């Protein structure tokens, strides 16, 4: 166990593992996401109230789900950075932050597109929407701070502190639909309760959420590999790797 933990600190070891992991993540994710989307967009039954416009849920919910999960993953990595000073944790934070920002934007955008036919407005200053907007700002802040500090070590730790401070927003997003009486509907997925939608709608949604998770894993690995190569460009193993690629 501890040996595994120590190995995780080695960028070279992670690079190899990521290489082996990435095809599985990519193909698994692509199959699940495609299955979920095709099933959801083309075959799932029409909603009796919203008609076909509800189908954007198959993009909206997975990206909103991921947007929050990515921040929580970043927070865990931030703790690891601060406590164990592990380089890879910071590589993950730097690699995941822009992806999280894009997912948050996607959730807000698809939400706006969905809001127009159902609520009659693109945007409303409701608690769930506002707190997601704050999440987007937090992602921007993390990216900006990381870019502003040139020293690698202090950049890692400063960003970790900021990520941890921003974590207060996550429970606010999660419970905003329960604490305030908002226009946004309550959570779609609950572990403890039976889903409120029929299984033919719920299952493709689950598939697309899982698929997007895997795709995110693949993309995070790819971005981490790039970041590792840039950071370790002066080491021997990277030089050898690049030479082997070149031949």
């Amino acid at each position, binding site marked *: 166990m501890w040996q595994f933990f120590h190995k995780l600190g080695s960028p070279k070891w992670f690079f190899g593992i990521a290489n082996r992991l990435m095809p599985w993540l990519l193909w698994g994710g692509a199959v699940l996401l495609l299955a979920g989307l095709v099933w959801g967009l083309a075959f799932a039954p029409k909603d009796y109230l919203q008609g076909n416009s509800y189908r954007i849920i198959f993009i909206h919910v997975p990206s909103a789900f991921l947007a929050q999960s990515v921040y929580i993953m970043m927070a865990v990595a931030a703790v690891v950075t601060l406590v164990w000073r592990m380089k890879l944790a910071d590589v993950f934070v730097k690699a995941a932050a822009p992806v999280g920002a894009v997912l948050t934007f996607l959730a807000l955008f698809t939400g706006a597109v969905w809001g127009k036919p159902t609520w009659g407005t693109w945007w409303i200053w409701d608690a769930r929407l506002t707190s997601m907007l*704050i999440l987007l700002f937090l992602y921007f802040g993390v990216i900006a701070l990381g870019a502003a500090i040139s020293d690698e070590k202090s950049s890692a730790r400063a960003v970790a502190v900021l990520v941890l401070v921003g974590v207060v927003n996550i429970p*606010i997003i999660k419970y905003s639909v329960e604490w305030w009486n908002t226009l946004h509907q309550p959570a779609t997925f609950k572990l403890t309760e039976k889903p409120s939608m029929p299984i033919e709608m719920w299952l493709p949604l689950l598939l697309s959420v899982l698929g997007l998770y895997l795709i995110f894993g693949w993309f995070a690995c790819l971005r981490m590999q790039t970041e590792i190569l840039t950071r370790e460009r002066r080491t021997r193993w990277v030089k050898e790797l690049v030479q082997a690629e070149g031949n």
Partner: protein
Amino acid sequence: MASEARVRLRPAHEAIGVLPAMKAVFLRDLKTAFRQHQDLLNPLLFFVMVVSLFPLGVSPEVSFLQQAGSGILWVAALLSVLLSLDHLFRHDFDDGTLEQLVLQPQPLFLLVLAKTLAHWVLTGLPLVLLAPLLGVMVHLDGNSIAVLCLTLLIGTPVLSLIGAIGAALTLGLRSAGVLLSLLIIPLYIPVLIFGTGTVAAAADGASVGGYMALLGAFLVLALTLAPFAAAAALRISLSNS
């Protein structure tokens, strides 16, 4: 800058207690600030000017100002606290006092707390005292002004405490000012929402107890956690330079 205003440094075995050390840091910050009183005045002038932009820029109608007044005052107060944050650690960072503070035997987060409180007394408190005057200028009624001042009294310390984290994180960076705003504004939004929400509830004749309790909870949370984060950020920024 006179040397007696600095924190007197002693060897560790003669270290003074935690509370006297906090008091010394607090009083020193007040003293050095009052010797450069223009710096104290600037956030207040900014506050007044931003508030006066709204009647001129949007609408001088009494009905509009009555509705938007508390929000305008809150946003203006938030922005002037944001502008003043750069001073919180900057001078001490430039002349090396901050490094001495970090080396003190007393826990750093308590010294940071003392500095933050001094910052609030120098910027937040004057804003609260100035708010009734501006409240009258935007046609708020007496009850709304009283509630507004109360929310500012509870809210501005939270702004200073959260801001200390951002100020510490961006210490010594190029273009720290813009970056600081970028990092801190998202964290200010909840305080703003509940601050103005309280005044709106009071104007509707609803009970403000729940809102006040939430603002108080923000203050307690910020008081207990923000100094730790700011102290950690200070150590990072100092190790960077």
